[in-house]
């Protein structure tokens, strides 16, 4: 009898294996009437999975966004920690289990995460035209309207726009190497002080270098090309193998994430660190994390400029509340606060010309960045993000061809 019970249980459990893919479309839609949306989202709880690798971003969210959406819209915003890959694996697990409603309502994504979530149909959309504040967004900007060469199609909402910058310590590096060639010389002369993180930021640097080595950014626009990838990634690996012995710890290991790299930099173990956010150096100096002698710069070959976005989960049953939160995050008020170097220093996605004059002035009078390069200047050196496959492949090959060698 006991045995029978157990077998019975097994049958129930195994039935779990075959019921995936049955998408639940019963989740609510976002109403076209915004006042309806506001009304129905009051009192809801929204779960937002985001990368939490930076204390000041976390602080912006926890002590500015969370209380504000609570007060203004009566929404409880719960933030959970998870990078792109964790978002993907969480949502896949839910799809496979055929769960009726998702644990996550809203996600902070871009590039390859967007690509993968679209692949498995985990994103809700198009929803952009329903948000009143999208009228301010600078959709004409190619760094905003395309995410890793993919059209955003209304499935994700731009939130911030930034460019990869290198950060160096002026006390340790008199004149920073401005090109890949100069970098090679510098690294050989100063072994052990340069490296890159084995995460999104580090791979973005690799991408910039790969494009730089090709000499022709046009090659990397449009869809993924195996030919282009193999040709120029080989060049990239050759370059890295050449400097590898002169990297931090002889290139045997790399900082696992950018936070760890920042720490090595602030301790003086490294002369360089980097950031996906060109304005971060000011923010970090203000918070006392980086030495005052830190400066940011950009290679002559250019660096990747991209936007990061917010998406709504298809399986969520609080899509309207999530839309309200997103609409708030792209409001001029929230964007302005976010852009202050003392808060986060994240570039805005709004088009200043669309804004009423008073707001435009407010944006223009944000305290100047002191240590980061000029916005206009680096814009000239901005590279577009190539298709997401480049990122996925670089991640894998970096592990196989560099780390594991």
């Amino acid at each position: 009898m006991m045995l029978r019970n157990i077998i019975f249980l097994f049958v129930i459990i195994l039935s779990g294996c075959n019921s995936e893919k049955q998408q639940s479309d019963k989740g609510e839609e976002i109403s076209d009437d915004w006042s309806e949306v506001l009304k129905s989202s009051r009192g809801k709880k929204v779960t937002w999975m985001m990368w939490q690798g930076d204390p000041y971003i976390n602080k912006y969210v926890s002590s500015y966004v969370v209380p504000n959406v609570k007060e203004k819209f009566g929404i409880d915003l719960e933030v959970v920690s998870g990078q792109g890959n964790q978002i993907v694996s969480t949502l896949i697990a839910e799809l496979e289990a055929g769960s009726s409603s998702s644990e996550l309502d809203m996600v902070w994504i871009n590039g390859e995460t967007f690509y993968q979530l679209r692949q498995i149909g985990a994103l809700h959309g198009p929803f952009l035209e329903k948000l009143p504040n999208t009228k301010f967004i600078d959709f004409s900007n190619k760094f905003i309207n395309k995410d890793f060469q993919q059209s955003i199609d209304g499935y994700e909402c731009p939130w911030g726009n930034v460019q990869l910058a290198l950060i160096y310590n002026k006390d340790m590096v008199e004149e920073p190497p401005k090109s890949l060639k100069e970098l090679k010389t510098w690294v050989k002369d100063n072994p052990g002080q340069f490296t890159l993180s084995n995460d999104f930021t580090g791979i973005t640097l690799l991408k910039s270098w790969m494009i730089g080595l090709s000499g022709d950014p046009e090659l990397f626009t449009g869809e993924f090309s195996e030919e282009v990838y193999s040709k120029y990634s080989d060049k990239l690996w050759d370059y890295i193998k050449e400097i590898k012995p002169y990297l931090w710890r002889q290139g045997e290991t790399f900082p696992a994430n950018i936070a760890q790299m920042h720490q090595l930099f602030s301790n003086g173990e490294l002369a360089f660190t980097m950031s996906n956010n060109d304005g971060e150096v000011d923010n970090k100096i203000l918070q006392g994390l980086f030495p005052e002698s830190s400066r940011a710069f950009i290679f002559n070959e250019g660096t990747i400029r991209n936007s990061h976005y917010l998406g709504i989960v298809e399986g969520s049953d609080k899509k309207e509340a999530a839309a309200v939160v997103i609409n708030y995050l792209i409001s001029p008020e929230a964007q302005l606060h976010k852009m202050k170097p003392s808060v986060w220093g994240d570039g805005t996605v709004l088009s200043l010309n669309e804004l009423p004059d008073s707001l435009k002035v407010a944006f223009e009078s944000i305290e100047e960045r002191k240590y980061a390069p000029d916005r206009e200047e680096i814009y000239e050196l901005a590279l577009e993000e190539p298709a997401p496959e480049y990122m996925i492949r670089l991640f894998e090959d970096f592990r196989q061809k560099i780390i594991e060698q």
Partner: protein
Amino acid sequence: MKVEFRNVSKVLIYSVIVFPIIWIFIFSLFTNWAFPSIFGFGEFNINIWERLLDSESLLLSGLLLSLIISLITAILSVSLGFATSEVIYKSRYKNTLLLSAYFPYVLSPVVLALLLQVYFVKAGLSGSLIGVIVALFMIVYPYSVLFFVGYWNENLINMKQLVRTLGGNKFSAWTKVVIPVSKPVISLCFFQCFIIAWFEFGLTNLLGVGKVKTLPVQIYMYIQEANPYYAAVASCLMIAPPLFLLFINRRWMSESIKFSPLR
């Protein structure tokens, strides 16, 4: 000469053991610990500790959450484990049954979580407090069974039967004799079960989808964002309850190892 060597070694071992606790505590009182200062520890700053009293504090809620999870898991595991272990102790298939208890316990919890994830999501348990407790129970309960099977003996069973012939019912046999007699062992098992649940990170993080922010999950988060000062305060909060339980259990602690299947 020999005695001295022995004492020196003892003092050395004591300091190796006690130093980390003291050091982490002191470290938690400061921020901006820049190279190369050793004990200067940068600025004295008990802000993080003060913020604990704030009702919005993530650390405080993490502490309460961890306590709730570990206490519930331990109470369930100890009570059900004690009852189950008697049956298994008496069973003809004792050893075979015990083998199956070792397995979930020795298998890495995070891999177990990975294997179970799909079922947890299906059952709507993923990302919830109850889900984390259920998952922890799957590791801690077998442990408790293993622990108590090593404790049961003929005398205890005979004593339980004696109560019946003296006129007590099943209930009073448990409440008036078996449980009071086993109090030290139950207390120890509780301590160990609490600790296993208290320590667990990988499983909680995976099945909790980051929503169940227990202290270990928070420590990991703080280390990830290079914020060692918060991590230090969270570490202090993590060390205190087990030490407190250790203090309560100190009288019969060294006996405990007798029943401990592992750890």
